């Protein structure tokens, strides 16, 4: 007989194809496993199509004691998952801002601040009309990035135009066309896959990068490095964020009081897609 596997659950509510395209979660999981595997704890990743199915997963996991804890991602304002995991008495760690977690431990990247930094980076290079291609507005981190970018744009006298995508390549193309109506000279994207869609769409509109439009991606990856031109990116050490989340998870499983675990600072890697 096999021994029962101690495990942490991570449910991702998105199309399986989007997960395949996005390097962020692969690196995050890699970081989780670096810390958890040596302690004999595995990470069960489950991809579901919607939030309802996500909540059902937590209910069943709790009922059958299949996981020792869960990691919650992509929180919305007043997210019902926070109450749910408390009711199910599942130890939980939130990847996101402490304001959304209502007392659960969080691993926090200061999205507001990095959005401000990206706008500053572009304003310093002379851009006065900047497009922001965000992820879904239902996510708190999307709103924090939009608010941060808006605040910094106002401070610096930059005109900011915003469009929403869902992190997929197709949504990136549609949102780029929307943004181009406002004639931006730079576009900041919430992930690398949408940034690639921006590059392709600009090419089809005969706009040169960075000559006519500069492009910055959120999340650095092999895709950013290989893009033509290579994409400037807001680079997080995502593996490290995963390691910190794993530490937070082990603390939560041990019954430690909730804390805010600060993620390491990000920085902008300037490559060929910005002037």
């Amino acid at each position: 007989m096999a021994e029962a596997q101690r495990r942490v659950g991570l449910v991702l509510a998105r199309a399986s194809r989007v997960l395949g395209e996005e390097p962020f979660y692969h690196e995050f999981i890699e970081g989780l496993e670096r810390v958890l595997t040596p302690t004999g704890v595995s990470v069960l990743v489950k991809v579901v199509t919607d939030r309802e199915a996500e909540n059902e997963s937590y209910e069943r996991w709790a009922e059958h004691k299949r996981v020792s804890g869960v990691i919650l991602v992509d929180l919305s304002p007043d997210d019902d998952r926070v109450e749910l995991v408390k009711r199910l008495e599942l130890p939980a760690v939130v990847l996101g801002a402490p304001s959304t977690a209502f007392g659960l431990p969080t691993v926090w990247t200061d999205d507001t601040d990095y959005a401000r930094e990206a706008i500053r980076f572009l304003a310093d290079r002379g851009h006065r009309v900047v497009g922001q291609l965000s992820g879904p507005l239902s996510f708190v981190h999307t709103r924090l990035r939009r608010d941060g970018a808006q605040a910094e744009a106002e401070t610096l006298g930059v005109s900011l135009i915003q469009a929403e995508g869902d992190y997929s390549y197709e949504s990136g193309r549609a949102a780029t066309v929307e943004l181009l109506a406002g004639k931006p000279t730079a576009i900041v994207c919430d992930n690398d896959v949408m940034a690639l869609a921006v590059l392709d769409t600009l090419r089809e509109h005969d706009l040169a990068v960075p000559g006519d439009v500069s492009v910055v991606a959120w999340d650095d990856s092999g895709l950013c490095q290989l893009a033509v031109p290579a994409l400037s990116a807001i680079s997080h050490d995502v593996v490290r964020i995963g390691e910190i989340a794993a530490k937070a998870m082990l603390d939560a499983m041990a019954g430690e009081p909730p804390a805010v675990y600060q993620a390491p600072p990000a920085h902008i890697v300037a490559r060929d897609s910005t002037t």
Partner: protein
Amino acid sequence: MARRETPAAGPGSRALVVDVIRSARSISRVELAEVTGLTQPSISNIVRVLIDDGVIHETGSADSTRGKPRILLSINPYSRFGMGFHLGAETLTCVAVDLTGGVVGREVVPLATGENGGDLAGRLVARFADFTDGLDLPVNRIEGLAIVAPTARPGFESAGPDLAAVRAELADRLRMPVLVENDAAAAALGEFWSRRVSREQAFGSVYLSTGIGAGLVFSGALFRGASFDAGELGHLSIRYDGRPCPCGNQGCVERYASMAAVVEDARQDPELAGRLTLDGSVSSAYDVIARAAVSGDPQAFALIDRAATHLAVAVASMVNLLDLGRLVLTGPAVASAGSIYARRLRSHLARTAHARNRHPIAVELSAQPRDAASIGAAALMVQAAIAPGHTTSAH
């Protein structure tokens, strides 16, 4: 009951139709007839059966240039699933994919497979139950399990676990199809399936891990050779008097470009070895070098770039031998530093590939390089189930 087969629409036709729908993402019945060369009635029959089986579904309509709206068909992703287990040295990677090859579940658990492995089949059966329970996947919607492991070195074929026996026992106890495949071949099929590569493409993938392997997909089927040992790219020699290789040859590219070779070179460089933490396993040491290389350490970059240059010479030979049109780089070694390898391969092939003026040779980077073998294993079961007549296994 609809009448099934006309002479022109045998089982191979069903596989062909599924494969065309998969690679097109969505397509109308009229276009299916045009692309496959099958008659309109044959297409209608095959499509009806596929819809009844839940393999495909109608996904709305698009405007047609011919006046009336066309109903589009696409793969129905969540109706069935394939499972893949990748046996590592100390861990087991478990993956479940849907019919499009998209990952719906993943877990890595500790598992000793060596002499202390004991009842390996029994432990895999337990893991299978544990994993599918955790994902709430109904067993009657699982098409089968494929197990992947690295190919054994010549002379060491009997060293690892007896996978043929494990396979037979698993098939018996799980009551579903079970296959065994090598990691590089499985990874190629997975990339082929999930990237929607069309069966017209001469497709290959390069799998970089502790060793180097390749997988080849021609006309939609994995190419396996006489003993399921095709794709030993790592033992393609790039130097007749080069470094000796345990396989018996000299100058094998694996001795210059594998993770193990890069780590060995780095550890012999006193400055690099002093600056980076290179103790620990080959894969963790390699990861340190790869991360340094992409974050601006010029020496680490030079080391990986040199490995990539060696690899490019071997890959150009493979591309020329087989006239490949599309290549994907995958495997754990390209997870961090894949862009360095891809750039080298692209520039080398653009300069040296024999067919470079006849067609482009696309070089892409896997989106899930660490899990490529287990994802590919699971995709193999999906292909065997919904596009059968297309794949045979080593056992």
